[in-house]
């Protein structure tokens, strides 16, 4: 069964371990600036919201990609990026309505979640389970629906 990625902003402890795990997994260094996931923190409210590519079914980033470097991979049930096929046009960055893709001019990399080949490090590391990657069984889907209901307004506006 395909797995799906879920974020639970209400659980985020703002520790940003996800950013560290991600940058290390992808860059071999610790650098939140180059993370594919960001825990955005409202210091005044003590709230953190983890955000990352949600691997849309009909992903605009993949839609705009001229080379298929960004493409929906059915096996991974995600939108993956092939570095070797990227020509650095950066239009995926503009195309993503959520701002979940960026481009690193230094390394010429699109910085976007790639599900770490099926074992997302942010999920592994998150101490509060604010990011989950689970098989899309009934229970999980129900949970997802619950979250969707909870953040209805958010999803309504972006979808």
């Amino acid at each position, binding site marked *: 069964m395909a797995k799906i990625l879920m974020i639970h*902003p209400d659980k985020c402890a703002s520790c940003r371990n996800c950013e560290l795990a991600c940058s290390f997994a992808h860059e071999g260094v610790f650098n939140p600036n180059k993370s594919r996931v960001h825990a955005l923190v409202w210091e005044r409210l003590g709230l953190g919201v983890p955000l990352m590519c949600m691997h849309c079914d009909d992903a605009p980033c993949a839609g705009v990609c001229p080379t298929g470097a960004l493409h929906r991979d059915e096996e991974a049930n995600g939108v993956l990026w092939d570095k070797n096929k*990227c020509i650095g*046009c950066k239009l995926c960055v*503009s*195309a993503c309505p959520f701002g979940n893709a960026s481009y690193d001019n230094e390394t010429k990399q699109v910085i976007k979640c790639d599900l770490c080949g099926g074992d997302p490090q942010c999920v592994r590391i998150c101490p509060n389970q604010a990011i989950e990657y689970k098989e899309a069984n009934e229970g999980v889907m129900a949970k997802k629906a619950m979250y969707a209901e909870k953040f209805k307004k*958010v999803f309504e506006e972006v979808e």
Partner: protein
Amino acid sequence: MEIIIDGKKAAVQEGETILQAARRNGIDIPTLCYSDALPGITSCRICMVEVKENGVTKRVASCAYPVHEGMEVTTDNETIRRTRNVLLNLYSARVPHNKDIKALKEKYDVPEIKRLQVNKGETHLAENCVLCGLCVKACEEMGTNAISTVFRGAEKKVGTPFDEPSDSCIGCGACASVCPTEAIQMTQENGVRTIWDKTFELIQCKECGKYFATAQEIAYVKQKIGNDMDMALCEKCKQKGNAAKFKEALKAELDI
């Protein structure tokens, strides 16, 4: 499928090129014009390898030559090295100050052919283009076709029609991005991006004020994905805006 690369057996996949197979097997072959995204240009010729199949030995461009069961590939021998040495010297005669070519020469321990390095005045010191063609192919792939090679032979260069700012250029910089020798300058200053002599007034993020894209890029995206969303935000602010919605939802829920 199995072939032999440099004396070692290597598992390869049907339909891939020698270069792809070698690289997957950790064997280094230099290239300038090759990109998985834009394969088949075959102009730089520094990826030449020796292939033995059906009793015939020949030198081929590894980036375009498909693997065949049982072929023997040599990526480094006297001839290949001699050819590579000459080629890299030819490149540096063309672009004497380019650091990427210098680095390649260093990496492959290429002896200097001084006779070729004499600057006869025709080489512009700032020349960095080795005419690999990746930029043109990238622009073609984008569907924008703002640049192409113009003229031929020694006069060949990459440019826009009549060396004038191209109508179709959207300023995406893919050309600069794929360039292996950093020959294409894209500058961005005070909200203006300049590339190929075309200047773009960048759109300013309505939130943070960052200049983030050209109007043409946004139009391209809209046209291609038929999306009518708000394109006035940079990615950071889009993400922040998205997070803020979550935040507001949470805030309301927590009654704070």
